C-alpha cells in the first residue's frame, strides 16, 4: 500500500526528469550565433527522413553538422560523468568521490596532450586520450589490488598517486610544447570544450558508452548493498571483488569516452549525483536512471550558456567549476543533501 503511494508520488518527478532534457534538447537548436526559428529546425531535422526542403543549405548544416553533434555530445558526456560519479560514490562508500578518483582524467589528459604534441589529428587525440585513461585506471587497480588492507581506501590512495604522476607527465608535455601553436591547443583541451565536436566523435565512443550505461543500469540495485560495506555485502551473497571490478570497468569506459570527446570537465560527476540524491533519494535503483537525466540536462544547459553568454566561447570546464563549486558549498550548508 505504501509502495503504491510511493510510485504515485514519483510519477510526476520522473516525468519531469525525462521531459526537461528533451525540452532543452529542442531549445538548444534555436539559440546560438545564428538564431533559428522552431519551424526551421523542425524542417531541417525532418529533411533527412522526409522529402521536405530546408530554406537554405546553411540551416541544414547548422542543425545537422554543428548543433546536433554538440547537443548530443553534451547530453552524453554529462550523463556519463554523472552516472560514473554516482556509482563510484557507492562502491567507495564515500560521497566525496568523483569519476576521476582512480586517475582516469589525468591519464586521458596526458594521452590528449601527447597526441596534440606529436600529431594534432583530432582522431588521434581522442584515441590517445581514451587509451591513456584506461591505462591510468588499470595501473591504479593492479597496484591497489596488490596491497593488503581496506581495498577501497588503498584504491583511492593509489588513484591519487597515479593521478599526480600523470599530471606531472602533462606538465612535461606542456613544457616541451611549442608555445605559439601546440601549447594553447593543449591548454584549451585541458579546460574542456565541445566546440569542435562532430558526429564522428560521438560514433567513435558509442560502443564503450553503450556497454558502460547498460551494464551499470542492469546491476544498479546491487550498488546499494556494496555501499553498506564489504562484510555486509558478502554476507548478503554478493561477490564483492567481481562486482566492484565490473563497476570500475564500466565507469572507466564511460569517463574515458566522455573525456576523449570533451576534454576535462570537472565537478559534474561530483555535484550532479548529490543533486539527484536530493531529488529521488539514495536508492540506486532510482538514482542511476535519474542521474542520466540530470547529468545530461545540466551539461547541455551549461554548454548552451558557454556558447551564448559572450562573444567568444567560454571553456566548459571553467563554467562547470564556477557553477559547481559554489553550488556544492550551498548543498553542504543546506545539510539535507542525501548523505550523512
Amino acid at each position, binding site marked *: 500500500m505504501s509502495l503504491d503511494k510511493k510510485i504515485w508520488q514519483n510519477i510526476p518527478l520522473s516525468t519531469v526528469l525525462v521531459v526537461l532534457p528533451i525540452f532543452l534538447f529542442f531549445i538548444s537548436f534555436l539559440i546560438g550565433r545564428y538564431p533559428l526559428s522552431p519551424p526551421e529546425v523542425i524542417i531541417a531535422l525532418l529533411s533527412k527522413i522526409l522529402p521536405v526542403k530546408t530554406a537554405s543549405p546553411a540551416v541544414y548544416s547548422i542543425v545537422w553538422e554543428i548543433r546536433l553533434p554538440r547537443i548530443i555530445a553534451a547530453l552524453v558526456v554529462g550523463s556519463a560523468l554523472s552516472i560514473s560519479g554516482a556509482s563510484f560514490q557507492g562502491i567507495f562508500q564515500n560521497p566525496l568521490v568523483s569519476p576521476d578518483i582512480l586517475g582516469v582524467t589525468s591519464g586521458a589528459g596526458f594521452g590528449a596532450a601527447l597526441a596534440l604534441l606529436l600529431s594534432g589529428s583530432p582522431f588521434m587525440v581522442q584515441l590517445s586520450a581514451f587509451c591513456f585513461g584506461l591505462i591510468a585506471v588499470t595501473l591504479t587497480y593492479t597496484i591497489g589490488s596488490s596491497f593488503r588492507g581496506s581495498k577501497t581506501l588503498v584504491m583511492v590512495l593509489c588513484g591519487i598517486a597515479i593521478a599526480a604522476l600523470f599530471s606531472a607527465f602533462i606538465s612535461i608535455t606542456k613544457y616541451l610544447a611549442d608555445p605559439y601553436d601546440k601549447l594553447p591547443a593543449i591548454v584549451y583541451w585541458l579546460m574542456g570544450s565541445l566546440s569542435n565536436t562532430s558526429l564522428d566523435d560521438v560514433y567513435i565512443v558509442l560502443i564503450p558508452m553503450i556497454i558502460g550505461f547498460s551494464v551499470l543500469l542492469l546491476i544498479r540495485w546491487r550498488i546499494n548493498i556494496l555501499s553498506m560495506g564489504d562484510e555486509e555485502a558478502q*554476507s548478503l551473497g554478493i561477490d564483492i571483488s567481481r562486482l566492484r571490478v565490473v563497476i570500475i570497468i564500466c565507469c572507466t569506459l564511460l569517463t574515458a569516452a566522455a573525456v576523449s570527446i570533451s576534454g576535462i570537465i570537472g565537478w559534474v560527476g561530483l555535484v550532479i549525483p548529490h543533486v539527484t540524491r536530493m531529488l529521488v533519494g539514495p536508492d540506486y535503483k532510482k538514482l542511476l536512471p535519474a542521474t542520466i537525466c540530470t547529468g545530461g540536462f545540466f551539461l547541455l544547459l551549461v554548454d548552451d550558456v558557454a556558447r551564448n553568454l559572450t562573444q567568444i566561447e567560454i571553456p566548459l570546464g571553467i563554467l562547470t567549476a564556477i557553477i559547481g563549486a559554489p553550488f556544492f558549498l550551498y548543498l553542504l550548508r543546506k545539510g539535507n543533501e542525501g548523505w550523512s
Partner: protein
Amino acid sequence: MKSHVEVVDASFAYNGSGNIFENINFSIKKGEVLCVLGPNGTGKTTLIKCLNRILKLNSGDIFLKGKDICSFNRKDLSRQIGYIPQGHSPVFPFTVLDVVLMGRAPHLTSLSSPSEKDYKIAQKALKKLNIAHMANKPYTELSGGEKQLVFFARVLTQKPDVLLLDEPTSHLDFGNQMRTLNIIYKMAEGGFTVIMSSHFPDHAFISADKVAIMKDCKLIDYGTPEEVITKENLEKAYNIKVKIMDLEGGRKICIPLG
C-alpha cells in the same frame, strides 16, 4: 539428531602473525542457540567472521549440515547463513525498507532488481517485528535498538537457517538488550540455529542452549550454560572474582566482585 553447524579443529591467523584462535571444536543442532563468551581480543568476532567465510580458516573445517562451507558459492552460502554485524552507519541514508530489501539479494539473479513479490516479503518482515511504521524512515536516523530490529527484519527477508550475531546486545540499553534476546529466542523457536558472541554471561543464562568460553585463542569450556558458566571458568576467563547466585524461578545470575 545430526549437527547443523560443526566446527572441527579450526585455526585462524592473519597473514604472517600469530594465531587469533586455534583448535576450536564444537557442534550445535538445528534450533539451538550458542553463546560465545570471552574477554576482549580473544577472537570471538574473528570466529563469527570465519563461520560466515568472510575470513578463511588457516586449518580445520566448518560444516553446514555435513557440507564443507568452502564448497558453497557466496550466494548459496548467504541463503543458509544470515549475519548481523555490530552496529554501523552506512554513508547513504537508505530508507528502512531499502535496507530490509537487501536481504532479497541471495534470491535474485545478478542482473535483476527486487520485484513486487520481494517488496511484499520485506514488508511482511517489518510487520513481524512491529516496525512497519518505520518503512520510509532513513535508516541512518534510527537509534541503536531500532537499527537492530531492522537487521532482524532483513535476516527474515533473507530466509537463511543459521543466524550469526556479533555482540548483538553491546550497544543497547537495558530494555533493548532483553528485547533483542527475546527476538533471538523466538527466532530459534522458529527454527533458526543461532551463534552469537556476547560480553554478558547473564545473557547466556537467559537465551542460550550452549555456551562456549574462549580465552587466549582456545576454547576453555563448552556445554550447557549450567555446566559452563561456573565461578571457576569465569574467573579464569576474565581474571576477576565472580559470584554466581540462584534467582527465584531457577535462573542464575553472575555478579563480578572485582
